[in-house]
Each structure stands twice: as C-alpha cells, then as structure tokens.
C-alpha cells in the first residue's frame, strides 16, 4: 500500500514539479510565502504552490475540510521523502502552517478553524507573530503590550519586536497583557488581527546580513474583536509555550534545506588533492569530516523521529534539543563555507554555484541561535524539562 502511494506521489511530482522548483532558493527568505501581497522570487512559485495546494499537500496531514489531504503520518513522511529525493522546493513557507495552525487545532473554536485554516493551507493569507518586546526577549512572559477590555473588543497599545516578515504579512497572532493584577504568566492572552487595522505601524529592522526579515510593530489603540481571541482570557502563556515548541521545530528545520553545493566536492574543486587523492588542505579536511559526521547524525535523528511516531512521542519536549543543535550546526556549516570559499565568500554579492549568497547566508545564520528562543534558553529548557534538573 505504501509502495503504491509512493509510486503515485512520484508520478505526480514528476508531472507537476517543474525543474525550476527542484532547487533550493539561494536564500531561505526566497521561499514562497503567499499572502495578499505575495512576493514572487521565481515566476514558477505561485503555480507550484497552487498545484500542491490543490492536492492538499501544502498541509498533507490536515483534514480535507480545512484544505489538507488527510494523510497518515506515514504517508506524509513518504511525501516528504519523495520531495526531498528530487530536491523539490517547499511550496509554501508559512508561519500560519508551522505555528498558528497547531494552536488553532488545539485551542481554537470551530468558527476560528473554519475562518482561518483554509486560507492558510492555500497561502491566501500570510501570518506573522507578535511575541518579543524590546525588554522581553528571553524573558518573554514579562511582555507589556496592553489589551484593554472594551466589552466586545480590546484596545491594544504597545510594541513588538523581532516580528518575522511583519512587513509582508496580512494578519498577526499576538500575545497581549489583558490583566496586570495577576502574576506575569497569568495575565496574557492570545489574539488575532489584520495588519491593516488602523493603529498598526510596521518598521523593518535591518540585520547585519543586509536583509530585513524582522520588524518592529507599534500598536496605537488597535481594535481587536474578542471573537478573535484564541482560548480563554489569561490562557495566552500556555498557548505561547505550546506554540514556541512548534516555532523551534520550524526554525531548526531550516537547517535541513540541502543546498546543491556539497561542501566536500566544492572543497575538492577549490583545493585539489594531494598525491594520495586526499584534499590538499589537510586541516580543512578534518573540520569538514567532523561537520559532515555531525550533520549526518542530526539528519538521521530528525528522520527517525519523522518515520516513527512513537519515537517522537516526546517530540514536544525535544523540540528544544532540535532547535539548539540544528541552529548551532547551521552556524558551523556557514563558517565552513567561508573556510572553503575564502575571500570570495566575503564579497557582498558573490554567489556560489547553486546561487548561494555565501556572505549574507553566513551573517543571517548568526541569528538562528537567537530568534525563536536563544540557544541558552533551549539549554535551560532541556536541563529543566527533559533532564529534570532543579
């Protein structure tokens, strides 16, 4: 049965995935994000997303009624494997899928699920998150953005920071303080609103990589209907904790994007071999082998988790481990590319053979172990929640 499903997937992909969509984009930010003002990095992206969405394969495990394909975990894994086999580009890079949808499935009501999920599945609406604030980075629960109760709606005032793609998103899911007279973890709620609501101002933050994938978002008397609150008032922290584990998975999965440029082969091209067929740069060779070993072990670890539901039963608790190791590994990989490419990689506009923006990707990777909870926070969580340390 699995094999016939695999055959079906393979045939469909062969027919529908154009060659242009069988390579990773040069930068992660060049994945297609959908939305009302969708940015198109390659002309084939919208059609590829639409084709996949028509099969329900942008969200293969979701029920059909919400735009999914209702696949079993096993079949979904086969789909992923087959996509990976041909290097198929992820058709839709979406926080709606990776972060908001688990929350809606678990904490949302039927009405909210029906209103929001189908648009997420086909990439019609793009979402961003409103979490961190200038003085609430690692200590997220100390957030100060205030939502004042006005009967059927809230009036939101405050500021968010590190909102990924805040300037391209259509709606925001946002943590706000609805009660200031209880301990900090208990006064938080989780609300949704359109970024076009009056009073919302977005200002992109330029990173050292030159890109601006994050924004500051300011709220001045922003009206949010109470029907757009997910879960109960005060339940926001529980939702946030649940969501953050999904964010961590998503960020660490970025490290799994396989660039077409194999570092070993590339190093061979650049340095050549000695008389015994070994990479001439002997010192780099050891660094390379150590990296490849750890990267392979990490990839297998993730794959084992995907293949065996029971193996990933503790996945929620483990997402911190995945986030920690995956992002540190990604930083190592980017430093390794600098070692291989040398001075050429330090030119702003230099591109690798597969179009990789070496310098910008390298600089961007430094943020991986900060965004979505720093490595330090992940290690704290592993120590306390997985290892049970005091």
């Amino acid at each position, binding site marked *: 049965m699995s094999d016939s499903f695999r055959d079906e997937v393979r045939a469909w992909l062969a027919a529908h995935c154009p060659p242009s969509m069988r390579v990773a984009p040069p930068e992660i930010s060049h994945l297609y994000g959908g939305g009302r003002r969708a940015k198109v990095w390659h002309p084939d992206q919208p059609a590829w997303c639409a084709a996949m969405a028509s099969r329900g394969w942008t969200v293969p495990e979701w029920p059909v009624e919400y735009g999914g394909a209702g696949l079993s975990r096993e079949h979904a894994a086969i789909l992923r494997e087959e996509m990976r086999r041909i290097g198929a580009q992820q058709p839709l890079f979406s926080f709606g899928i990776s972060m908001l949808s688990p929350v809606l499935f678990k904490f949302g009501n039927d009405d909210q699920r029906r209103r929001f999920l189908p648009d997420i599945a086909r990439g019609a609406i793009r979402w961003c998150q409103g979490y961190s604030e200038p003085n609430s980075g690692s200590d997220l629960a100390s957030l100060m953005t205030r939502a004042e109760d006005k009967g059927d709606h809230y009036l939101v005032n405050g500021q968010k920071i590190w909102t990924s793609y805040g300037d391209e998103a259509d709606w925001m899911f946002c943590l706000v303080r609805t009660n200031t007279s209880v301990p900090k973890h208990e006064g938080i709620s989780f609300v949704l609103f359109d970024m076009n609501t009056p009073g919302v101002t977005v200002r992109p933050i330029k990173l050292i990589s030159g890109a601006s994938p994050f924004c500051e978002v300011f709220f001045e008397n922003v009206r949010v209907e109470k029907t757009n609150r997910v879960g109960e008032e005060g339940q926001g922290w529980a939702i946030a904790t649940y969501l953050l584990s999904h964010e961590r998975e998503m960020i660490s999965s970025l490290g799994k994007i396989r660039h077409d440029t194999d570092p070993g082969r590339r190093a061979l091209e650049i340095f050549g071999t000695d008389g015994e067929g*070994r990479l001439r740069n002997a010192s780099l060779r050891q660094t390379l082998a150590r990296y490849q*070993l750890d990267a*392979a072990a990490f990839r*297998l*670890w993730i794959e084992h988790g995907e293949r065996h539901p029971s193996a990933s039963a503790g996945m929620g608790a483990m997402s911190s481990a995945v986030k920690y190791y995956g992002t540190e590994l990604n930083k190592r990989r980017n430093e390794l590319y600098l070692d291989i490419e040398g001075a050429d990689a330090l030119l702003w506009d230099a591109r690798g053979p597969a179009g990789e923006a070496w310098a910008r990707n390298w600089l961007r990777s430094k943020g991986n172990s900060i965004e979505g909870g720093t490595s330090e926070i992940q290690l*704290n969580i592993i120590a306390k929640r997985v290892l049970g340390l005091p």
Partner: protein
Amino acid sequence: MTLPLTEEQEMLSRSVAEFVADRASITQFRAWRDRTTETAFDSALWREIAEMGWCGIAIDEAYGGSALGYSGLALVLEQFGRHLSITPMNATVLAGATAISLMGSETQKTSWLPAIVDGSLTLSLAWGEGAHFAPFAVATRAEKTAQGWQLSGVKHHVEDLSSVDRFIVVARESGRPGDREGLGVFVVPHDAKGVSVEATPRVDARQCGTLTLDDVVVDDGCRLTGVTSVALERLAGVINAGLAAELLGICEETFARTLKYLKERSQFGKLIGSYQALQHRAAHWFVEVQLARTIVQEALLALDRARDAEGYRQADMLCSMAKAKLAQVAELSTNEAIQMHGGIGMTDAFDIGLYIKRARVLEQAYGDQHHHLDRLAALEGY
C-alpha cells in the same frame, strides 16, 4: 527521537539488563579485576550467557543462531558497556563468529558456528600488529606447504588470549605489508605447536597481549575460503559497529549516573545540578548522546539490511561514522562524568572513573576517531 525497539528487542534488552545486573555487574568486574589467576574471563559466566542464547543472536538459524541480526547483538553489547561486564563476547562472537560467517565455507561454518552458539568454542581475532589499526599492514606470513599452511609472525593487542580455544589469524599469503590483497585468514588452535602467548595488563582490566606464531602448521581446512579485501573491510565494519554499541552503553550509563549525582550533591547550600553552567553542559551532553544512539542504530540497521554492493558500501560508511561519533561522544561523556563528580570522580573506589578506561580501549580498537574521520573523508571522495 531515537528508534523504538521492537517487542522482541525490548524483551531481549530487558533480560540482558537483568542478567547482567545480577551476574556481571561492576561489583563482579571489581572482583574479577583483582583476581590473581591468569584466565581471561569467567568460563562459568560465559556458559550461562550461551545458555541464554545471546551468542547466536547474529548467527544464521542454519547454524543454531536466532538470526536477530547485529541490531540484536548490539543490545547485549550495550548492556555489557553499561555494566563493564567482562566476557569474551567481543573476541568470540562479534569478531570471531563474524569472521567465520562472512568468510567461511559451508563446511567451516557448520563445524564452528554451532559451537560458538552453545558456548563451547571461544575465539580471538589476531589481526593488528601495531598500536594503530591498519587493516592491510599485515606482515605475518602464511606459506603453502605440503601439510597445509605454515604461519609465522607476531600479533599485538590480541584479546582474551590466554583462555580462548582458537585464534583467527590474519596472515599474508602474498605481496607486501600494506597491499590490499594477498591476505588469508586461518583458524589456529591455541594448543598448536609453535603458538605462544604473553598477556599484558591493560587499563580496562581485560586481558590482551602478544601472540607469537613460530612456524605454526595448520591444515587446509583451517583456511577460510572467502577472504577478500572487501570481506575484511566488512568484518572491520561489523566489529566497529559492535564496539560503538558498547561505547553507547558507556555514554548512556555515565550520563545517567552523572545526572543522578547532579540531583543529589550539594555545594554552597544548593544542589550542584541547579548551577546553570553545569545544566548547559549536561543538556549539550544529552543531545550528543541522542545523536550517538541514532547513528549506531542506523549503522546496525544498514548492516542487517545490506543485500548488495551499494547496501554494503552504505553500511561500511555508517559503521565508520558510528565509530567516529561514538569515540567523540564517549570522550565527552567520560571526561564530563569525572569532572562533574569532582574529587570522588577520580577515585578508584567510586565507579564513575572506571568507565573512562574501558571507553578509551574501545575507542582505539579497530581504528580511533582520526582513523575513521579519515576513512569518512576518503569514502566521501575528499
């Protein structure tokens, strides 16, 4: 997110753990270490282990084994690693039986494998001649004579050598040390004329030493018929995967014991496990052990599944990866275990410091970290 055990594997693992805690625990290890006899292992214990059926786990049913594969055998080795159990499992089963399974003729398998399964035959593989594993750097000579084969040479770091019944000797039939081809493998009785052994104490309290072959004559039937450089590399791959499984046991046990200690020991009025610097190191260590388990599982699966040249190539690569990774993680684990235990960690009376000795022996055997990183690079083509 490491692979779950099958029900069969789960049962096996549990029964080994129970047996070993009772019959081959660290207490028994200490008693054995301080023994005065020159025997290499406890024969009574070995018979019990054979009766449990664990010697035949990776051996074909045709020869009395249970054909649970190397994934099964590894569960036994992992428990042995956790308890520092001293048995001839590595020498006799992991190395010896595998050599015969991979390279023996039907007749040879029939005559030796069932005896390994029932515990009546013990073996030791005599391959290396130096301090570092170099599979083809074999100078020991095998010359064809009218009576069969005549072997001469010196083998170092041979395990369990005072007590095994036979040696599996890798010797050169043609060519020069370093040549990939021209090697033969011979099953040599311990009591053959010209065989002499000299044991040397090693840090892990196991026996190893020097085997000298002085014009030893064996008949043709003792020469394994399927020896090739590729078969020898497969043998090394299996052994390394097995050693990696024992190392995994050491990593997990040292981690578990240290985690427990972090929750018990107080300094400055606080449990030491509440200090963030130690928490972060423990968390990193935990992740490394997860990756270690993953890569060992994958190597064993690949060994058990390999059916064609590509499958064997994949398995070979994974075995080297597993060994390299486990050497790295075992070094981390044993060093951190001692350091986090502080003073008590460096004493002989406390168990945690014993693991580092066994770990380094396993790391070195059949190629250390550098050897396998080098192989990995070579197999990747750079």
